């Protein structure tokens, strides 16, 4: 019987060796270990053995069972692992096929850049003020030190509203919001005001009868021109990186004194001079200045106590510079192939 047992074990291990399917493994289990299996058949003959032999053979039989069971388990694991691997191999896909997109829209580039500027100013403690786009002559011109017959009115071709004796007009500058804010708020004032403005300019690659400005106004005790420079420096460094340089040039606006135009080092050549900046090394960016004492007084603020600065940025110019857009009209045509790029 001992030989029989050893033979069964050897045979079982050999057959397991050559087995390649999990299903065949079950067959082997039944054949060798099942109720009607070969091992059971041998054990049934145990009765014929002597009392001395019985425990020895019994132990051996249990050992054989345990060995076969272990071999079966090992084989099963090995086959399962193989099967898993095969499945994974099979499931391999072309990972270069495109992904599936959920619908997702885009902000207009004007909004994107405006948001960026709003956030920078919010961080510096500027509130955001709104004002009417259709306003009166007083808020757009007169309070801003542009009395009737002022020659500087010529430079802003104004659209007037019918039936109002040229008293109501489309604002030509967001500076009108300065007046509204100063009328309704006492210093300290720190605001920006983004919005639409209108001038009678025919449409071409760099002009539009409607465009966007962002006005800024700060009024407090002890505000200096140095603060104006610091604020604009900070804005531009945040927008364009620490390498950009600003240049302040004297200019004239009736509502600021001193007034300046601010140029930024050319995005293209960094200040060396190229065709984009017409060899200047700088590109004109915005107008600014210290709020004219007459404007403060017109709005009921004592210019002996308070001072302030104001500035006005052209949003379109900044958007075009930022994204290398060479034609202003694209911004108002709204072709989806344009809009999806931002």
């Amino acid at each position, binding site marked *: 019987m001992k030989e029989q047992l050893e033979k069964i074990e050897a045979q079982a291990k050999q057959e397991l060796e050559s087995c390649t399917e999990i299903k065949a493994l079950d067959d082997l289990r039944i054949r060798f270990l099942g109720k009607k299996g070969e091992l059971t058949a041998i054990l049934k003959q145990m009765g014929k053995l002597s009392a001395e032999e019985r425990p020895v053979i019994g132990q051996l039989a249990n050992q054989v069972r345990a060995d076969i069971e272990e071999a079966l388990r090992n084989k099963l694991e090995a086959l399962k692992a193989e099967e898993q691997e095969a499945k994974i191999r099979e499931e391999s896909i072309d990972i270069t096929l495109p992904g599936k997109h959920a*619908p997702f*829209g*885009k*902000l*207009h580039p004007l*909004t994107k850049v405006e948001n960026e500027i709003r956030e920078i100013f*919010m961080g*510096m*403690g500027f*509130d*955001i003020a709104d004002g009417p786009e259709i306003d*009166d*002559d*007083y808020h757009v011109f*007169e*309070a801003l030190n*542009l*009395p*009737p*017959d002022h020659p500087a009115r*010529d*430079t802003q071709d104004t*659209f*007037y*509203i*019918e039936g109002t*004796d040229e*008293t*109501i007009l*489309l604002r030509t500058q967001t500076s009108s919001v300065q007046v509204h804010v100063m009328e309704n708020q006492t210093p*300290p004032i*720190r605001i920006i005001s983004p919005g*639409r403005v*209108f001038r009678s300019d025919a449409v071409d690659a760099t002009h539009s009868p*409607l465009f966007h400005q962002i006005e800024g106004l700060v009024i407090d005790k*002890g505000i*200096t*021109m*140095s603060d104006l*420079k*610091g*604020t604009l420096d900070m804005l531009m460094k945040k927008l364009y990186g620490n390498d950009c340089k600003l240049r*302040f*040039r*004297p*200019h*004239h606006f009736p509502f600021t*004194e*001193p007034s*300046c135009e601010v140029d930024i080092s050319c995005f293209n050549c960094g200040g060396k001079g190229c065709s984009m900046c017409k060899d200047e090394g700088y590109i004109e960016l915005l107008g600014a200045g*210290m709020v004219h*004492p*007459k404007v403060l007084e*017109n709005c009921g603020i004592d210019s002996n106590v308070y001072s302030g600065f104001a500035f006005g940025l052209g949003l379109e110019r900044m958007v075009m510079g930022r994204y290398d857009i060479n034609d202003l009209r694209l911004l*108002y*045509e*709204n072709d*989806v*192939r344009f*809009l999806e790029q931002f």
Partner: protein
Amino acid sequence: MNLSMKWLSDYVNVDVPIKEYCHALTMSGSKVEGYETEGKEISNVVVGKILSVVPHENSDHLVVCQVEVGKESPIQIVTGASNVNTGDIVPVALDGSTLPGGIKIKRGKLRGVESNGMLCSLGELGLDKKDFPYAIEDGIFIIQEPCRIGQDIQSAIGLDDTSVEFEITSNRPDCLSVTGLARETAATFDLPLHIPVPSFKGVDGDIDQYLKVDIHNTEKCRRYCAGIVKNVKICPSPRWMRERLRASGVRPINNFVDITNYVMLEYGQPMHAFDLRYVDGAHINVRNAAKGEKIMTLDGIERELSEDMLVIADANKPVAVAGVMGGEYSGIMDDTTTVVFESAYFEPTQVRRTSKALKLKSDASSRYEKGVDPLISMVCLKRAFQLVEELGAGEVIRTVIDCDHTDYIPSEVEFNPAWINSFLGTNISSATMTEYLKRLDFSIENGKVIAPSFRIDIGCKADIAEEIARIYGYNNIPSSDFRGVAKAEFTAEQKFIRTLRNTVVSLGGYEIATYSFVSPKYFDRIRLPENSKLRNAVKIVNPLGEDTSVMRTTTIPSMLDVLSFNYNNRNEKACLFEISKEYIPAEKEKAYINGDTLASGGTKHRYAYSLPDEPQKLTLGMYGGDADFYTMKGMIEQILEELGINDVEYVRAADCEVFDEKYALHPGRSAVILKDGVHLGIMGEVHPEVQNTYKLGIKTYAAKLNINELMSAASGRITYKPLPKFPATTRDLSLICNDNLPVAELEKAIKGAVGKILEKVTLFDVYKGKQIEDGKKSVSYSISMRSHEGTLTDEQADGAMKRVLKALSALGAELRG
């Protein structure tokens, strides 16, 4: 203003490269737009002398010249010109030279005879007879200028000036002159400035025998200086004067016209020269025009004047519109013998209003309206006479007329260096400030800065601060970090719009930007009836064109335009949105209020007209892809959900009187969105006719939501509801009902019947067609019920379903068999 650098050097000796000059002036406040060097297109053209002229052996009309050009030996040039003779001094373009227009001259053979260059005409050098009146147009330019053989042609004939173009701001009319820019140049580079005081000798004579001047309106004409030149010789002015005028962008005409222009450019004072023959009664009256009085101005147009305009008149008629333009007979003619020179000061507003009313601008009017130096009239008259004598153009009567009502008080401002430093954020010494101001001809007396008479822009401390700052250099002012407490927040509206915008983007909307003004034709294009209130729009008096002439009262047409633009650019789908304003004329007119006097002069006005309302709108538009009524509706539902607006109602737009945009939409496929009776917006499929009008060959959907109403409807607060502890029970229902019964009615009935335990009603199928009787539809719902007190029993659920069926049957909806 174009500045001749040669002219500038009369007053200030600035010796820096031109680029550096331009940069420095720009940075001190006189912005340079660019500069142009005359004759820069010409190279390798020299002065030559004709040594011999012999006929060409193979041609009748060519000649062969030997020309001395300052080299070792003369060169041979073949020319077709017939006006060259031995001994003539001529411009010679040598081999390899360039001429204006990019022309290159190379040696070559003409009919077999070698030619080593070209003799040039005036035209070939880019000049004409106005520049050199003694030369002929169609021949070689025979030079009569003092020069030497071999000299560069540019310096030989004075074609080597550099003209710098300045952009002068409206507050600095004094810089519209050579002397003004010389002053700025001297101040910028800290150089001495030399402006001589003009004087003339004159001949004996009594001015009163020749001319009488009366100013009838001394408010509008503060000063009138006049003098007489007799025995005049009208001829071209000398080369130096022509060159300077040309470099300044002014065409030379004749010596008298040139003198008036020269003095205007030099000092900024417009001058006028009249022919005395045409001054009736030899009497000049500066007076208001009579009503309906007419004048033919120099530009050949007859103009009707009004009483508030000022004219220069003789005893009978106006001869010039004061400060704007002369009349047809006022000019200098070839047979003029006696000339009246005028140098006057007219009040800026007067000139501006007249020029605007007549739509007539001139060099003189643009200077007067900005403001000329009120004290310079007589200086300029003397300068003109000095030039008349220098040019030998006539005899000046020594005595002159000066009607002076200027009453000039210099502008004085407190000199407060400490305040200036605290205003600029600088630390400039009082001595340095004083020095800067003196360079600009300001004087300081008793703690006051006194502005020179030509600085009409100075009136307050800040003006002085600017003068200091620009000479000190704006870029030398330090940048300070922003100080103070940073505290800012969005307003509720700004936050709401931010949320709205982000929501629409996350639902797939592409934001667009469109113009606020549209064409009035848009009202027809969206089928508005004649009496629609949307046709009452704010109109622009002076639009660029009809298509931008009214402020939009509805944003829908702008959206349709953009959809159409995209569709016709073959973009197969689009889902767009815009957050922008409409402009609605105000209903009531505000009272006219006159207020306080303004610091800047004038009165603080409030107007008789009210400002329009500018409500913000969210406009949506889509076509292509899976766009249909329900995609648009789903998008709106999701937007409303995100804004916290629940329980809205959709009613047929056709029955609504609030939104006239309904006419642009399909009456069977459009809805108005209501929340507690408030109209939130309108949405739907674009009317087929409108689709056609907008060339949209595909079903298109549009919506407009009122942002103000959305804001009021939005519940600001989100409260957490506990997650369910007990399982839900779900029952499905398939119903048959009349096709025209809105499902909203069914849902309302289900909700009412189930009561408190209702969790959710989900419509999952609507079916018409096979197996369903005509005029009926099958509607399937999944009804989810749940209690927070315990698991629902079958009895509870069945009971609810019984109530539901009963309620539905009242609507004619029965369980599908």
